[in-house]
């Protein structure tokens, strides 16, 4: 019997850029080695407000601790900020970073990069998911990237699920865009609350696991941020 899952919970078919990368990596070893430095594995984050930068900052640190060196980049801002979480001894040739986290607040910046994956940080409120819906609508009009959702500030996992379900059903019904649930950060945790640091770390670690497990990244060509000497 063929199982029929609601498309909201299914991953979209593999994009052509991902297929090209897989093909280069496994079918043409020489070519892949030659071009390795040209690729950047970017995880684009669309923030609701600049105040959410702490999430991408800490996520970058966690990914680095887990053996996936990260560079954080805030493109499209007046003073683009870059920050590498790698240890000094791990500094390698340009292009060796496993991931580059792109944190932006403006959908236009993502459209400019032509990314095929986007993680939206969505405040857990009716206004928050309505705004997120409008952003997804805008993105879907320009190339329909895979969209992952992280709910920020729900009371508990049940509330997080309710908000995610509302948004996911809406995007599927009206935009034909399925969403990937990447997790949530409950209201009790936030930046600067040292007492909650381990609690916060656990939630962020769970999100990083889901990102890695689902291979949720965009492959950008030569868009790696400039490195500091």
């Amino acid at each position, binding site marked *: 019997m063929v199982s029929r899952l609601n498309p909201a919970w299914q991953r979209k078919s593999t994009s052509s850029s991902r297929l090209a990368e897989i093909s280069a990596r496994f079918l043409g070893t020489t070519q892949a080695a030659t071009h390795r430095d040209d690729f950047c594995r970017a995880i684009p984050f669309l923030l609701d407000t600049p105040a959410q930068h702490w999430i991408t900052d800490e996520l970058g640190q966690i990914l680095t601790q887990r053996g996936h060196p990260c560079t954080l980049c805030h493109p499209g801002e007046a003073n683009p900020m870059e920050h590498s979480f790698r240890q000094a001894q791990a500094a390698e040739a340009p292009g060796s970073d496993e991931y580059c986290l792109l944190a932006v*607040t*403006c*959908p*236009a910046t993502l*459209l*400019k990069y032509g990314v095929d994956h986007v993680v939206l940080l969505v405040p857990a409120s*009716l206004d928050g*998911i*309505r*705004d997120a*819906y*409008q*952003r997804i*609508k*805008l993105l879907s*009009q*320009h190339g329909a990237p895979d969209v992952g959702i992280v709910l920020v500030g729900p009371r508990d996992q049940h509330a997080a699920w*309710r*908000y995610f379900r*509302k948004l996911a059903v*809406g995007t599927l*019904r*009206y935009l034909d865009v399925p969403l990937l649930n990447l997790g949530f950060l409950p209201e009790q945790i936030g930046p600067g609350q040292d007492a909650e640091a381990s609690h916060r770390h656990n939630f962020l670690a769970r999100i990083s696991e889901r990102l890695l497990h689902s291979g949720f990244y965009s492959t950008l060509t030569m868009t790696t941020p400039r490195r500091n000497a």
Partner: protein
Amino acid sequence: MKLKIESAETPDREQLRSLLTEAAEQLTGTGTNILETRLRWDGQPLLLADANLHPVLVSFEPEHSEAALLNGLRGVEQLCNALPWINQVYEPLQQQQQPPKLVVVAREFPPGASAVLRLCPGLSLYRYRLFSVNGEIALWLEHLNPPPAMPAAQESAPRQDAAALPQEASNDILPPLSDAESAYFQQL
């Protein structure tokens, strides 16, 4: 000095009128002139002139947002019909015959207003709250719809295809919601 802020009781119509008159520049920007504080039309709205010499009708209701919107729409229709006369009577308009604008102030977002907003670029909605700050009554106004992205002179020009302008799209220019989408996101 310590600030003691508390929410205040719903004002009566005259109290709200006087607070809105004081806050006229918050509604229509600097350079606003107050033409009438009590027009003898439904809801007895305020009539202002903004810095660009547009007559601006301010329709408000302490409680009933629907009534504020409907009275305002009715008032704008009357204002359109009376535009030559209005321009003659009120000197600050300088006989420019600019089209009128409507500002609706209510406690909540009037039902059905999102559809009207899409069709009326000259309509602005404000939600108000009253606070008591150290015993003084203060009016807090929240603009519910962003100002039109295009200047008034270009309002009648055909819109450019959004697909052609990916770099120019910004946080503030998000695609509008259809009626079905708006209804869907009304509640959790």
